């Protein structure tokens, strides 16, 4: 269902007019109110009057994560702190956290963006939404919460973790919609089976999974084990949280809420804007945000855009599901390797479960790539030859995709750490 056809199905010229107008207002406001953006625009020799529409967007400077951090906590606010009603931050695991400060209007925009997201996967006021994204400073929990409230669904705000409790709620409350990270969805399915339940028959209809990259194979796995339709959702704290883009029932690319968040794809090296269809780094400009609006934010997420009309009736541009990150992209022996490529290969092999770990190391100046895959009932044989054949099969398929050699190692079940949040798939031991 399309939540807001007035915006989601605007004819292209109408959408462009709206974006032009909103960008003009944004640039004008940022130049007047935020010293950080004024200084940068002055340094690039650009005045607000120079930006007459989306066509001029590429003239504006980028904003990076490091710059947002250096503005910690309130330097990037575009309104008085009294106007701010809620604050979220990124985890800050790699430095100072990024602050996202919301006005009442921003929370309204967020609820709208998430209402569109949940509606696109068929959620309605009749659903019971078990929201297993973390509540708190992390944007996942409350973002889904506001959207579910907006569409009138019943929210179970259980937050992340506490798997035993998750299982009880799923069983006792008749949950129909599950929201969490994709790796946690699989973890839950396993937990349900261990409790002797049949996760397929529990009445789940839809799941909205995001906050980490996943693949179509993992989607099939989740859909088969939980008996629901699994939708990819995308968002980031720096922009608003979840609600930036979402899949419709076609499950073929994520519709960007582009009346609110304008996407561009740029070459991560040169910053040059790339044409539709070409892979590069996603850059987002917040068109309507009031508290902490951002110009051309470098997300470090790799994807491409597709403007071909979607049969669902939405006219918004679609982004391909994330292909990786510019920063967790591994460079192994000079070749770009995205963990998502490895996952796709591994999960396509019958009998393999999505429990694997990628280990990169460097010995005698040479990078090595090891992929550990957990042994399963389906893969096991009493003959060493068969097991070695399985290792070789995975190695050769990986070579076919990555064009570099890797070493596949079968390990005992449950030896790779299970996550309740984002899965830790990569171990880079290189000391460079």
């Amino acid at each position, binding site marked *: 269902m399309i939540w807001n056809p007035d915006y989601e199905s605007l004819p292209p010229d109408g959408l462009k007019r709206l974006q032009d107008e909103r960008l003009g207002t944004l640039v004008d406001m940022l130049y007047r109110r935020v010293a950080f953006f004024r200084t940068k625009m002055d340094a690039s020799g650009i005045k607000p009057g120079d930006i007459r529409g989306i066509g001029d967007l590429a003239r504006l400077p980028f904003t990076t994560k490091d710059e947002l951090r250096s503005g910690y906590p309130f330097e990037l606010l575009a309104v008085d702190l009294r106007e701010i009603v809620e604050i979220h931050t990124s985890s800050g695991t790699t430095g100072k956290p990024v602050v996202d400060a919301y006005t009442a209007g921003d929370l309204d925009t967020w609820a709208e963006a998430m209402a569109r997201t949940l509606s696109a996967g068929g959620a309605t006021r009749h659903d019971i939404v078990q929201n297993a994204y973390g509540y708190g400073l992390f944007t996942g929990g409350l973002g889904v919460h506001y959207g579910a409230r907006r569409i009138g669904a019943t929210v179970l705000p259980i937050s992340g973790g506490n798997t035993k409790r998750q299982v009880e709620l799923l069983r006792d409350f008749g949950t129909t919609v599950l929201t969490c990270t994709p790796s946690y969805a699989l973890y839950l399915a396993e937990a349900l089976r261990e409790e002797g339940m049949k996760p397929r028959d529990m009445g789940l209809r839809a799941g909205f999974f995001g906050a980490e990259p996943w693949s179509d194979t993992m989607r099939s796995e989740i859909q088969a084990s939980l008996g629901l339709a699994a939708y990819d959702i995308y968002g980031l704290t720096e922009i608003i949280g979840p609600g930036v883009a979402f899949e419709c029932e076609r499950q073929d690319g994520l519709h960007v809420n582009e009346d609110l968040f304008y996407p561009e794809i740029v070459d991560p090296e040169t910053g040059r804007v790339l044409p539709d269809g070409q892979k590069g780094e996603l850059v987002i400009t917040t068109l309507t945000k009031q508290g902490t609006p951002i110009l051309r934010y470098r997300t470090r997420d790799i994807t491409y855009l597709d403007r071909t009309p979607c049969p669902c009736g939405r006219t918004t541009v679609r982004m391909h599901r994330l292909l990786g990150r510019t920063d967790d992209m591994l460079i192994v022996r000079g070749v770009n390797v995205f963990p998502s490529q490895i996952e796709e290969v591994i999960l396509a092999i019958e009998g393999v479960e999505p429990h694997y770990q990628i280990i990169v190391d460097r010995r005698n100046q040479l990078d090595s790539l090891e992929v550990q895959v957990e*042994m*399963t*009932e389906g893969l*096991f*044989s*009493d*003959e*060493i030859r068969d*097991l*070695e054949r399985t*290792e070789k099969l995975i190695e050769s398929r990986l070579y076919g995709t990555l064009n570099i050699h890797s070493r596949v*190692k*079968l*390990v*005992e*079940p*449950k*030896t790779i750490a299970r996550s309740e949040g984002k899965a830790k798939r990569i171990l880079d031991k290189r000391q460079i």
Partner: protein
Amino acid sequence: MSVNQVSIFLENSKGRLAEVTRILAKEGIDLRALSLADTSDFGVLRIIVADPDRCLGVLKENGFVARTTEVVAVEVEDRPGGMSRVLDVLDEAGLNVEYMYAFVAKAREHAVVVCKIDERERAREVLKAKGIRTISAAELRGL
């Protein structure tokens, strides 16, 4: 007539084999025969026990990947040339032995060897025709 072997996947790291034998000892499961095949990464432990189903259940409860495989237990004369005779018979019939290992206990004056052969039924027939006995699961329990 077949004998069920229990096969267990083990990582090739310190203490894994001891972990299996510790669990089996705790459950009072007696190992009648065993062999360990390994590579630098992993190994497959193959064992013969009196009650393979129970053994399999215990291992799975403890998080191991394990399965049962049908194998043939053959009586071999305990003298030079005894083993050679068995293999000659199988070879002449065009039967391939994937792997084999010897039993811990002796059956009367004979030794017992466990063989993994694809065509188990035919193997038993050709051996029987040459007067070589195979041992049933029931008989094994008594050994």
